[in-house]
């Protein structure tokens, strides 16, 4: 079975002139890419990138709980905000468990224990939902692998309001994030409440993940958070430029990925976005390697510190 390729559709989607629905989807994913880039950049320098993985898997029981709530209390109406609210609830719960466990055991053990516990619970809940005779349970597995094509205006509004929260928090606390990511002990010595800032950062990550599982799926969300940040860390060495580059790379790969998926049948948008991001990453890696080996390829004067 060969995929049918329509280059014109890709171009239309890139220029927001494909259709109203496709433009809505495109917009939602661009917002998702932007905030994932910002949060990914911050988490990369906090050395907590795998926290995303734990938190995204912890959305699964929330999806199940949200579905059950809408089934039993709302007459089966599939309200997306209930499911997303359930996801956000369990993610924040997982975050609380994580922070508690981190004091008692090694960080990676705490991460894995929380991940497997919550995900296992989610799987149990889903297997219970499968045995309930009534209800429209179709589409629950979209949260595992993502399904962006059916995003509607309400969901785009949800994603963009989540993005707004992240933007506001990022720009309002710009210098605090910088300090936190660079040297948290110094920040603590200056009188900042490090625990509070760290909690805020992880809650922003929770929001990014909760709004992202609908479009990217709970496994691939890890990619859109780490890939732009790692790519940007190869390209620029300046903090504010780093976050900006990371956000832009996230947005661009989301835009191109979703457009390709609009033009090519059978290409899931999540995979296209991640693989396009990897293309960016490897290009940046080659550029950085050449740059290190043969001197400055970019017309900027970076003085190498030779201590």
């Amino acid at each position, binding site marked *: 079975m060969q995929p049918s390729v329509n280059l014109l559709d890709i171009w239309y989607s890139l220029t927001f002139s494909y259709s109203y629905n496709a433009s809505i989807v495109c917009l939602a994913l661009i917002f998702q890419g932007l905030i994932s880039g910002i949060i990914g950049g911050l988490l990369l320098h906090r050395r907590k990138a795998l926290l995303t993985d734990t938190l995204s898997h912890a959305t699964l029981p929330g999806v199940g709980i949200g579905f059950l709530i809408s089934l039993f209390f709302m007459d089966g109406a599939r309200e997306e905000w209930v499911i997303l609210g359930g996801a956000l609830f369990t993610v924040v719960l997982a975050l609380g468990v994580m922070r508690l466990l981190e004091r008692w055991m*090694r960080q990676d053990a705490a991460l894995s224990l929380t991940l497997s516990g919550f995900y296992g619970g989610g799987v149990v809940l889903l297997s219970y939902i499968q045995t309930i005779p009534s209800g429209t349970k179709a589409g629950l597995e979209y949260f595992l692998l993502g399904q962006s094509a059916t995003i509607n205006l309400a969901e785009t509004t949800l994603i963009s309001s989540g993005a707004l929260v992240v933007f506001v928090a990022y720009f309002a606390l710009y210098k605090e994030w910088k300090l936190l990511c660079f040297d948290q002990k110094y920040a603590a010595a200056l009188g900042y409440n490090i625990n509070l800032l760290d909690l805020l950062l992880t809650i922003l990550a929770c929001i990014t993940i909760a709004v992202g599982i609908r479009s990217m799926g709970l496994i691939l969300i890890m990619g859109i958070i780490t890939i732009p940040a790692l790519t940007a860390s190869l390209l620029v060495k300046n903090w504010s430029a780093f976050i900006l580059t990371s956000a832009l790379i996230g947005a661009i790969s989301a835009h191109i990925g979703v457009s390709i998926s609009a033009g090519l049948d059978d290409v899931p948008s999540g995979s296209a976005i991640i693989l396009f991001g990897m293309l960016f990453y490897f290009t940046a890696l080659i550029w950085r*390697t050449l740059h*290190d*080996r043969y001197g400055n390829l970019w017309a900027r004067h970076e003085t190498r510190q030779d*201590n």
Partner: protein
Amino acid sequence: MKYLLECKNLSVDYGLHKALGPLSVKLPKNSKIAMLGPNGAGKSTLLKALTGVTSYKGSLIKNYSSFSYTEQRQEVDWDFPVTCHGVAEMGLYAKVGWFRPLNKQHKKMAYDALAKLGIEDLADRPISQLSVGQQQRVFLARSIVNEEAELFLFDEPLAGVDLKTSEVIYKLFDDLISKGKSIVCVHHNLYDAADYFDHGILINHHLIAQGDLTKVLSKKNLESAYGAGIAVPQFKKRNKVTKVASAA
């Protein structure tokens, strides 16, 4: 005089970054050698090249059969599930070889090494419950447990340890020298270097000076290593410190 170790035009690259420029060093036998230099000068890198942990370019002539290498204390995970005695035993693994278990005599040797550093009562304690000085002593016990080694390479054993532990280490160095061993040690503190060592290598990516420690630590050498304005250490007799420690 035959040297313990001679390296000619030795250089180390970390990926694409030049960590240690080409340098030529000669180390005399049976002496306490301090490796000095500013942060990032490549002291640990040189040590790693000598032990073979990192690859290097250039030639290295080794006139010793076996050595013992001790990493920086921070390099390992101190929550690892092992006791102090277990760490000390690790120094014998290479001697015992693959597949063979340790026998009673080996366990006794590990215990003796701990006793030599004054921590025999900690033998069965998990290493997660140790203080900084005790961690360093366990590490040193591991390095001296194999008595066949001729050269002992230490990476900053004196960093962050208290007076009592540094005294134990000082005695350990003397003990090793009296047995005809040689010591190469990365050291940071210029001001007490002369207390512990008799020979010095001053590097800052390249070799700046080597030879007798008091001559190496001249104003000219130090300024070319650390930049202008560094205070040249005054060399005092060590006896005073020893008395304070033994009185306490």
